[in-house]
C-alpha cells in the first residue's frame, strides 16, 4: 500500500516503552520468528545500560507507564540484570525471554530488586508446544527441557512466569494444548499458572515456514473508522533499538516503522501500511500483558479531561 493513502494513528500517550535490548541475537533459531533472530543475526545489536538509562529518563518525563524488554534473547545481553534492576527504579518491567539461559543467581538478585521497588517484574517465557515433540520443531532440537528448567528457576525464585505461546497448532488441538500448558506449569510448582497465546505473524522466518502477508492484506482508512484504535500497539507504544526508535515492536525490520534517532523524534503518527498491522487490528492488545491490555471490547467513553 502507498504510505500516503494508508491509515494513520496518532500516539495518544506513551504508555509502554519497549527496548530491543537483545537486538536480533538469540541462542535459538525459531522457525516462526518474525524478525528471524539467531546466533548469527546481528542486524540489531544489544542495547547498553547507558542507552537504556537515557531512555528511561526521557520516557519518564513523558509519563510512561511501563517498560518491556525483548530481543533476540534479552539475557544474552551481559548487562541485562543491571538493566532490569535500574528499570525497576522507574516503573514496572516485563521481559520476553526464551527461558533457556536464565541463572538462579540472576533471578534471586532480580527478585530482591522487585521486592525493593514496589513495581512488578514480569517474565514472559516463550514456548510453542507443551511437549518436546510439539515445541522442538519450532524452537529447535533440545530446547523443550531447557525452557522447562527456566520456568522452574523462575518459580523457585518466587516469580509467576507468563507462559507465552504462538498459536502454531490446529484449531481442534487448541483446548487440549492449553490444558497441557497448564499442567506443565503446575508440574514445575507454579500454583497460579498464567498463559498468553499469540497469533502467528507472517513476517521474518514465518514467511518461509508458512507464508507472508499478501500485498493486498493491508488496512484501509475505512476499516479504521469507528475502530477503537487504543487496541493498536502503535497508539500508545514505541520501541528503542540500537538503530533508533521504531513505531512497533513487530516492525523493526520495516523502513516505514522507523521514526527517528530519539524518542522525541518518534512521537508522530504511526502509518499502518504493513501487513502485520492487520494482525494487530484483528487481535488487539497483542503485545501487552493481560494486566495492561485494554481488552477486545474497550469502552469508548470514560472520564476525560474537562
Amino acid at each position, binding site marked *: 500500500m502507498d504510505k500516503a493513502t494508508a491509515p494513520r494513528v496518532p500516539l495518544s500517550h506513551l504508555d509502554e516503552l519497549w527496548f530491543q535490548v537483545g537486538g536480533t541475537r538469540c541462542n535459538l533459531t525459531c522457525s516462526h520468528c518474525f524478525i528471524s533472530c539467531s546466533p548469527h543475526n546481528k542486524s540489531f545489536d544489544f542495547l547498553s545500560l547507558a542507552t537504556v538509562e537515557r531512555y528511561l529518563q526521557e520516557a519518564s518525563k513523558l509519563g510512561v507507564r*511501563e517498560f518491556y524488554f525483548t530481543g533476540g534473547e534479552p539475557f544474552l545481553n551481559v548487562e541485562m540484570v543491571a538493566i532490569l534492576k535500574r528499570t525497576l527504579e*522507574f516503573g514496572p518491567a516485563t521481559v520476553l525471554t526464551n527461558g533457556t539461559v536464565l541463572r538462579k543467581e540472576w533471578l534471586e538478585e532480580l527478585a530482591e530488586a522487585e521486592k525493593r521497588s514496589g513495581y512488578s517484574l514480569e517474565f514472559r517465557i516463550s514456548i510453542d508446544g507443551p511437549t518436546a515433540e510439539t515445541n522442538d520443531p519450532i524452537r529447535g532440537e533440545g530446547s523443550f527441557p531447557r525452557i522447562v528448567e527456566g520456568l522452574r528457576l523462575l518459580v523457585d525464585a518466587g516469580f509467576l512466569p507468563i507462559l507465552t505461546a504462538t498459536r502454531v497448532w490446529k484449531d481442534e488441538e487448541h483446548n487440549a494444548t492449553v490444558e497441557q500448558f497448564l499442567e506443565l506449569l503446575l508440574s514445575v510448582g507454579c500454583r497460579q499458572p498464567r498463559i498468553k497465546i499469540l497469533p502467528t505473524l507472517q513476517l521474518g522466518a514465518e514467511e518461509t515456514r508458512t507464508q507472508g502477508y499478501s500485498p493486498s492484506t493491508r488496512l484501509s482508512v475505512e476499516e479504521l473508522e469507528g475502530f477503537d484504535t487504543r487496541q493498536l500497539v502503535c497508539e500508545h507504544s514505541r520501541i528503542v533499538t540500537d538503530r533508533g526508535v521504531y513505531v512497533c515492536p513487530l516492525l523493526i525490520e520495516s523502513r516505514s516503522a522507523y521514526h527517528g534517532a530519539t524518542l522525541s523524534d518518534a512521537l508522530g503518527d504511526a502509518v499502518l501500511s504493513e501487513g502485520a498491522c492487520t494482525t494487530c487490528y484483528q487481535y488487539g492488545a497483542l503485545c501487552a500483558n493481560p494486566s495492561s491490555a485494554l481488552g477486545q471490547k474497550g469502552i469508548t467513553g470514560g472520564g*476525560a479531561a474537562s
Partner: protein
Amino acid sequence: MTKGAATRSLNLGKINDCCIALFGGIYSNYLALEKACNDAKGRGATKLFCLGDMGAFGPHPDRVFPLLKQHQVICVQGNYDDSVGNGREDCQCGYLDERDNRFAQISYDYTLSHTSAENRTWLKELPTEIRFLWNGKRVLLCHGSPRRTNEFLWESTSSTAFLEYLAQEYQADIAACTHTGLHWERKLTGGKRFINVGALGRPANDGQTCVWYALLSIQSGDLKLEFVPLAYEHEQLACEMEAERLPAEFIETVRTGWWTSCLEVLPGRERKQGKF
C-alpha cells in the same frame, strides 16, 4: 490526547466538609453498602461518594439503589453501570481469558436481568467523573482512570511518572478511582495524591472477609487518608447468593476473602498475594 466522546462531568464547585467517604465498586453488595454508609457517617463523613459499579457479582442488584438514595451517595458511572444502563452485551471489563469471561458473563447477565428499567435509566445517566474543590485541592473522582472508565490501574504496574502525568493532564491534585477493587495510594509531587479506594463489593483478595473503603478528612489543614476495613454480614450475603444460584466460586470469595475469578488481569505481584 484521547478524549472520551461520552464524558459527563459533574462539578460540585467548592465543598466545605471536614470529612468525606469514597466507596468503590458495590457489586450488588447492599449489606456492605448499608454498613459502610452508617460506618462512614459515624466517623464524621458528611458526604458519601461511590466511584461506580453498583451491580455485579452479588445478589439482588435493585437493593442497592434505595440505599444510595436514602444516604444521598453521589455516584460516578462505572463500566458495569454503563453496560447495564445501556443494555450492552457484556460488562466491558475486557477479559481475554475464557474462564474469566465465562464467569464475568454469568455475573453480567444476572445483574442486567435483575435491574429494573428505572434503575437502568438512572445508571445510564450517571456522570463519568465528579470534580470539586476541597481545602484548596482539585479533586477528581473517576472509575477506572481519569482517561478511561475501564482502565485498570494496579499499584504494581502504574509508574509514579504515569500517575504524575494523569494528575497533570486531568488537572487533579487528588485523583481517586476503584476499578481494580484493590486499595492503594501513591503520594505524588507537590502534595498530590493518587488513590484507589478499593471496593465494597468483594474482599481485597487477602484472605479476610472484610471489604474496604477510603475516608478522607482534613486535620490541622492537612488531608488525611484512611483505608477503613469493614466487616458486614458476609454469611448472609453468601446464603443469598446461593439462593440466587450464583456461582459457587463467587460465594467462596465472599466466605474466604480470596478471589477465584477474573484473575488473569492481575499483575504478578498482586496475583501472588492471593491464593488462586
